[in-house]
């Protein structure tokens, strides 16, 4: 667990860089996490995915996996990988300030 300042807010991050408290999140923090992970500017399509993930997490208590994102977010899997290189669900969760998707167990 580490503490650091993102967009002027003191936040706690876990070992893998995920926000510990989803309630501390805001859009500026999202921009900073994105920049730190190689995404300079978050587009509308990025936000569509990030907001969808946050909404599902806050409603259901877990973040969707890539496959369910592809089926339900309105953004096909191919594009998810273009928007969030390597691990879209993981990276979008990290930027969205929610825990790592639990699909991978």
């Amino acid at each position, binding site marked *: 667990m580490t503490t650091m300042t993102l967009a002027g807010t003191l936040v706690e991050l876990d070992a893998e860089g995920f926000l510990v408290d989803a309630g501390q999140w805001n859009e500026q923090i999202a921009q900073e996490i994105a920049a730190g992970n190689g995404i300079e500017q978050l587009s509308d399509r990025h936000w569509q995915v990030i907001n969808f993930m946050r909404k599902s997490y806050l409603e259901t208590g877990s973040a*969707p996996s890539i*496959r369910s994102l592809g089926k339900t977010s309105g953004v096909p899997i191919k594009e998810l990988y273009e928007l969030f290189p390597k*691990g879209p669900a993981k990276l979008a969760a990290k930027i969205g300030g929610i825990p790592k998707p639990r699909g991978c167990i």
Partner: protein
Amino acid sequence: MAHRIVILGGGTGGTLVANRLQRRYGRQASITVIDRDDAHVYQPGLLFVPFGLTEAEEVVRPRHAQLRDGIDFRLAEVASVDIAAATVDLLDGERLGYDVLVIATGASLQPQETEGLSGPEWGSSIHTFYSLEGAIALRPALEAFEGGRLVVDIIDMPIKCPVAPLEFCFLADWQLRQRGLRDEVEITLVTPLDGAFTKPVASARLGALLEEKNIRVEAEFATGRVDALARTLHSWDEREISYDLLVAVPVHGGPTYIERSPALGDALGFVPTDRHTLQSKAAANVFVIGDASDVPTSKAGSVTHFEGETVVENIQRHLEGSELASTYDGHANCFIETGFHKALLIDFDYDTEPLPGRFPEPRLGPLALLSESRLNHLAKLAFQPLYWHVLLPGHDIPGVGAPFHPAARQPAGHRSGGPR
């Protein structure tokens, strides 16, 4: 009037819950188990079939014969469930009402979800050992394989028994060494995860074991499509891996009736379930056991076994109108075959990752956690008769209770530099 309990699925979970309920209620409950076939497969045995270490007929028994007298077994395909009306429609047109429904239909393999996977090469250069037919067809393919690239590909998570693909690599390594062909074959494990396993300490230990055995790991590779003619795998982010023989673990989802049942399942067909009470989130009188649920632990027989107690207890509490018990803790354990008559064992729950230590008694064992031993291998073999004669009938296995006991594990923080 007797409680009407309908159980969908006559596999590990459906069978052990039916038997426990029948013992608890006797004539006070009418218990119906529905399955579309009468072949109960001991799924941990599938791993051994391709290597000729087990014969196919040794891992299959009739489903009905595992159920106690007094339980009604029906061969039928489920059309859909109406949770508002509390009814199950069967494809043959019959409608069953229930007081309690147990969903125990597991996870199904969906090779058709991946472009190029289930075409004409399926069964010739593309195989799986995750089904009985697949495991049987893979045996001659492995025997005929004399050199080249053997690729084991986990297409996407979640899958049943996430360690089985690793075990397959270990056993392939062993078999190829015995045949004097190991130097002719490159074995690669392809996984969408960032390492060999989902939890850090076990992932590091298993990663080291793969390296020792010269098995390559291609991590964070999410397979988008298979070019079966060129014999290449393509990731969503445009990476490419060539193979000569592909052993694929197809994506898993729920059975199709879940999709046809309004408000029951999630996007993948798994049933949203309370992770501690195992009651479905869709309806108070629907409980879920085993791979069919979305609880965040491994899809594994051990999980199903440990969930059984909670499901049976909570069905009773629901019928009595009392508060449910939040007793399931995510407990899972798996033996991991590593070849050469050895295995290692991991034991974990929702909160504690697999760590070194002893099992089932802290400090005493006799089984070692997260390290290879011959005794672990023998224990894995010994488990199969226990499965048929103790676990399915719904008896307790001595020393192996449902709750997880983290005592005497070494906390991850006390260890530096990863596994020894």
